[in-house]
């Protein structure tokens, strides 16, 4: 079973539709495609957001994502995976991350997409800093805290040990 895998980090916006079309091109064994798009919301914990800046660890971030894509391939019979993660400054409404998974059957595509997102949230070396939109003057930048709920979601996939 040959699989097309794309992992890309970039400042620029991505196009979910064209990434999904690339995975499907020229093959008739794909029955299910799941696309997850993460978007910069206009508020963070109730506070209005002016923008978000994503810092990443160049070199490590891409390697970590590739490692997780390979783990997903071992775990589910996937026919294609694309992960695109943006970095730099993003404004509300802009897309942050894209995960596309293709498989013969929907359960595998859904599970792999959730697995990859859970791991991106907790293990990929990215850090979000938000600029809150103050009333009149800028209220400065705040590093987003990691959520325990995200750790719990990631732990679903490794019931015995939390970290690899």
């Amino acid at each position, binding site marked *: 079973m040959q699989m097309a895998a794309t992992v890309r980090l970039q400042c620029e916006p991505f196009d979910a539709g064209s990434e999904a079309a690339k995975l499907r091109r020229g093959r008739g064994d794909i029955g299910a495609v799941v696309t997850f798009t993460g978007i910069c919301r206009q508020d963070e914990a109730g506070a209005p957001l002016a923008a978000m800046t994503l*810092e990443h660890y160049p070199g490590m971030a891409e*390697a970590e994502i590739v490692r997780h894509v390979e783990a997903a391939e071992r775990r589910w019979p996937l026919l294609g995976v694309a992960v695109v993660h943006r970095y730099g400054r993003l404004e509300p409404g802009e897309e942050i991350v894209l995960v596309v998974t293709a498989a013969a059957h929907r359960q595998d595509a859904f599970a792999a997409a959730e697995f990859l997102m859970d791991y991106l949230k907790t293990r990929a*070396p*990215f850090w979000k800093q938000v600029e809150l939109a103050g009333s009149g003057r800028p209220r400065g930048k705040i*590093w987003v805290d990691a959520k325990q709920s995200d750790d719990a979601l990631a732990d679903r996939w490794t019931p015995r040990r939390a970290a690899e």
Partner: protein
Amino acid sequence: MLKLRYFAWVRERIGKPEEEIEPPAGIATVSDLMIWLSQRGEEYAHAFENPTVIRAAIDRAHVRADAAILGAREIAFFPPMTGG
């Protein structure tokens, strides 16, 4: 020489994104290194004031605080990740 890299608020507190250091003999683990770094000045003490929340990577792979640093070329310190 060992290259250190800092990210997010660890980088901001220390005031630089990276530096080269020569850790003294006896610094065997990531945890030892954090303790040693935190004695180098106020900015380091501030960055490592709660070492249990700091994550580390050796040569671009996640490691735990008790990981040996022998042979490492690049060690990074950062807060818990918030990607995705």
